[in-house]
């Protein structure tokens, strides 16, 4: 009889509803915890760095014929990239920028004259070594490199 009632039309949907209400309450809690989580993990800075990698490479490494409205320079000048353009080019050697890289996994895409690039790579490596921070340098063009910091276990 118990089994009969369990599979009946009214009891089973009621049980399912209870399961769903519990699920919704847990979801509410999970979203709340997500909002309170470490902000730097999903922060704007990281996003800008990654955007830089994606857009910097085509424009300066391989792709020189993108429409002007889609060039990196234009975007830096006209959009929210102005928040952290220094990460890309001009202020790379400033410690404040390097500190930002330490906030987590990051990519820097650089495009300067070869000798300046060498100097910046050296600076980047020295900084990472000093912080005992795993890192990697990829030279993808004579005037461009991708510099990656990989703090362990932050993902």
């Amino acid at each position, binding site marked *: 009889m118990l089994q009969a009632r369990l*599979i009946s*039309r009214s009891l089973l*949907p009621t049980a399912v*509803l209870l*399961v*769903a209400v519990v699920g*919704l309450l847990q*979801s509410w809690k999970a*979203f709340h915890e997500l909002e309170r989580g470490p902000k730097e993990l*999903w922060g704007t800075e990281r996003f800008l760095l990654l955007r830089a990698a994606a857009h910097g490479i085509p424009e300066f490494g391989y792709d020189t014929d993108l429409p002007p409205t889609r060039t990196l320079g234009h975007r830096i000048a006209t959009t929210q990239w102005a928040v952290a353009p220094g990460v890309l080019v001009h202020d790379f050697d400033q410690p404040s920028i390097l500190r930002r890289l330490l906030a987590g996994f990051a990519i820097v895409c650089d495009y300067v004259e070869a000798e300046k690039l060498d100097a910046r790579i050296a600076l980047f490596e020295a900084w990472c070594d000093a912080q005992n921070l795993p890192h990697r340098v990829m030279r993808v063009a004579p005037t461009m490199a991708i510099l990656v910091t990989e703090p362990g276990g932050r993902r």
Partner: protein
Amino acid sequence: MTAALFLFAQGWILSYLIGHRHGQGRRGLRAILDALAFAPAIGLGGASLVFVAAGLAGITPPSGWHLVAFSALPGAGLLLLSRPAAGSALEKPFSSPPRWLVAALILLVGASAWMVGRADARNPRGGYDAIAIWQVSARILEGAPTRAGTILRAIPPSHHGDYPGLLPGAFAATWHVEGADSPSAQTFVLALFGLGLLAALWRAVDRVSGPTAACCAVIVLASTPELLIYLHLQYVDPIVAYLLLLALDGFAQELEERPMTSPLLTGFAFGLMPWAKNEGVALAVLLLLVFLGGVAMRRRSEILRRLRPMAAGAFLPLAVHLLFKTLWAPPNDMLRNLHSTWSQLTDASRWRRVARGFGEEWNPLRGFKRWGAAWLILPMALLGTRRERLKRSGTLMAAAFVLLALAAWFGVYLLSYADLDWHIPTSLHRLLLQVYPAALLAAIWWGWPENGDAGAAEEEKEWGAQD
């Protein structure tokens, strides 16, 4: 946002038209729900394929709203291929679930949508993988669509340039139409795939167990914390789960020798599985093997001949995926690092660590956070099990597939080159999420009376008589 909605609407219309021609007698509300289930695959998946295929062929995709028209090509191709069905399936008349249950469904799904929407408004960029993998790939595709391969091979391996392009392609296509990167386009892409997932579960459950069971299944799925969180974080795992559900239901219909509803569309969804994520390749191969095993056990080789429309539907996504992997994608990091396979497989401590990881997910108290009380569905299904239902080949296939998929994920961790203390906590729950809706479907097919509400009443009467 507008582009995503247009692509979805286009997919809905095309799916409806294809289903109408080749839908084995599905009419009315069921036909509309079928089309809703396939709409994200045809609309957004189709756009993604067109965008990447154009790039692979060295063609810059057309700008603006022309791209929306070109994105209809895969769906239009399927419409041309579809032939009117030879005979109509005997459809059970559509009986509405109890009104209070429908009201609860609307309330609970609405609450879930509100929670995801609220989180999306606060953080429209999504989570780590969305930012570091999918959006980076999407920007590469959009910024240099014909040279994306060169760039994908240059990005660090940790950004997984080898990951296939369903989500990046869909993002890139919607941004391309709108002329700018738009976080709202991303959130809508995920929301529409989420809607498709719910519709896919409804149609699969309704087909066997009726609308009340379908209503209950959708309520449970739509309130599972793990699903809602990953729809918000813009991960691809809910999309893999969605495509798997469509394909699993299609293969189950074939095995049961019921006329398959929309085999071309089911084939397209099956073909998109590898295009969504590398795990999709494993799931697609496993599903095919389980199906072939079922065919061999039933000794009905003529079933295989009826798979031709499915194969035709799967052709385009599989071809684009193959070209992408051959021409553009860098080598996969996991395959590249398979060095000490045998020693890892024979290391007992790895077995224990992986088993502990799985145990923690299913521990009702610790896994509670991710899965709510969804684990209660399994004992409920077992209580409702009846011997006749265990003979249904589709149900057996679904259950066997879920168990083998879990075994496959276990094997992935045994062979993983990464540190298990990092790898298991950061990914196991997402791999389980890919299989979770299929497991829910198998449990309901297993435990809920067949033939819908009439079947339930009949079984209840039988049980009463036995008592």
